[in-house]
């Protein structure tokens, strides 16, 4: 096993070295070649061609490949109908040239010529979806699938406030301001281990217009290692009981949670591996 893993690593390193070589990078090239004479040609009389030698055929490549780091070529496009994550009708958008050309082929967009701009000036009336910006649909999709784990203290008493939720969002790589978060009507107080892992709903307003409901659960945590709650495998793949019974109506509207794809045997193996890993971490900490 050790031999295999080592050889795999070596192969990967070798591939990384080889992939940087110019003859492999050529296949990703899209720019046109521009060539220059290494030894410039001699002067001839006006309107005459100079006599050339073999050395005048030696060329240097001036423009060879795409700029590094690779930048996608952009293109302006005028949309004729609503396109997800791109924009609204009548809007002039700068996007990747490849997607822009595809949209034009499907008649979802046109070139932004002055004639077309006059033609689609009143196209904003066709805006059926009425999103406040073009990234709203994408963020709404992400937030509605998210399960937010709010870590709270197990020792010190607290009541849930918007800034607790803000910090939990930040841990999930989503930045939400305080005024955009609305908590449930009933106050949530702790520390209370009966709350642990139960589901309630937090609403987030985007651009002060669109509202999204986010699943959220409270997890208790202490600085003392011995008093911590046991580790649960894949809590975000399992449905949880509701904290408030009023929320049953909202639960039906939300998209279903994706179940775990592992077998029971695979799961056991996975848990054993993770335990070994965690033990190792603790041991290292104790030694240090």
């Amino acid at each position: 096993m050790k031999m295999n893993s080592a050889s795999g690593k070596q192969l990967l390193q070798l591939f990384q070295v080889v992939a940087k070589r110019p003859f492999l990078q050529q296949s990703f090239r899209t720019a046109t070649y521009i060539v220059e004479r290494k030894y410039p040609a001699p002067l001839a009389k006006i309107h005459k061609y100079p006599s050339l030698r073999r050395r005048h055929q030696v060329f240097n490549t001036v423009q060879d490949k795409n700029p590094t780091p690779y930048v996608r070529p952009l293109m302006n496009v005028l949309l004729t109908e609503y396109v997800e994550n791109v924009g609204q009708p009548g809007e002039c958008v700068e996007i990747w040239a490849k997607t822009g050309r595809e949209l034009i082929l499907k008649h979802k967009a046109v070139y932004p010529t002055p004639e077309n701009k006059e033609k689609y000036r009143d196209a904003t009336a066709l805006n059926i979806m009425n999103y406040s910006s073009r990234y709203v649909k994408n963020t709404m999709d992400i937030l509605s699938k998210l399960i937010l784990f709010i870590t709270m203290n197990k020792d010190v008493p607290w009541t849930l406030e918007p800034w607790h939720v803000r910090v939990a969002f930040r841990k999930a790589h989503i930045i939400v301001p305080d005024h955009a978060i609305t908590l449930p009507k009933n106050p949530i107080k702790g520390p209370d281990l009966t709350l642990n892992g139960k589901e309630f709903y937090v609403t987030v307003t985007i651009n002060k217009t669109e509202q999204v409901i986010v699943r959220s659960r409270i997890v208790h945590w202490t600085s003392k290692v011995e008093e911590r709650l046991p580790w649960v495998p894949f809590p975000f793949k399992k449905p949880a009981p509701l904290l408030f019974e009023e929320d049953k109506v909202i639960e039906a509207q939300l998209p279903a949670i994706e179940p775990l794809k592992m077998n029971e045997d695979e799961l056991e193996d996975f848990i054993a591996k993770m335990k070994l890993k965690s033990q190792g971490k603790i041991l290292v900490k104790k030694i240090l």
Partner: protein
Amino acid sequence: MSAGVRSLLPYNRLRRLKNTHNVWIVSVLPVPYQKFYREWMGSEDKETPVHWKPVDSEWVRNPETGEVKRFQNVPIPVLYPDQMHEGLWGGEGVIEGLVKKGKYRCPVPRFWVPNFYKTVVYSEILDKYLSIVVTERALELIDQHSGLDSYLLNTPAYDLKSLLALKLKRKLLFSILDKDFLVNNLEKQTNLVEKYKDCLIPRDDVEWYGYSVQEAQLKYRMLLKEQSQPVALKHEIRRKYYQSLINKDFDEPPTESVSWVKKMNPFTKPAQAP
């Protein structure tokens, strides 16, 4: 011919040397085709340089010494293989040359070949999707002209180069002249005809536009054959007779013509009084 010899020849002379046979054929063909061929192959000076950067000024100052010298643009020869005529390369071609990889190493031959895609392009006038081989430069040019049709119609033959593009252009020109495209949507048709009003050329030129030399030769031969073939007289007489029948009115009563012999004959019955 080795790699060295080809590029050492003068750029304009090289093409002419290659085309000596073709030039002889073209001199016999009709005048509209000669006009097209001069636009396509005979105007090297007007071509936009793709693979090298020209200097606009005739005089250049040396930055170190401050010496002023005359400067001459010497174009780099580009090869256009036969496969170019099956796609849209946007004026790109293959460069053949040498590369020096070290100070004390002898130069090694190298070919600079463009990168190709197979993509779909949409033509507004023909209302058709075409799947063709294309370079990135061609796609950028189409975007600059905002559409395939305006790219083909506005660029001259010496920049289009490929026969596929020229044939498409001929089709577009014919459809604009005849106004037989987008019959269901007449508003769009009139708008497009007005848009490409300046790109039009006379019909006689369009009929000989975008043919290769061999194709034009074949077309001219067929034309001569049709003209020189003797036509039997019976066809024309029959045609005249049919036309006379068509023009004749059968409703009118035929006028009676009485010969003078009948008038003189005393034994004939006299005409009945009305």
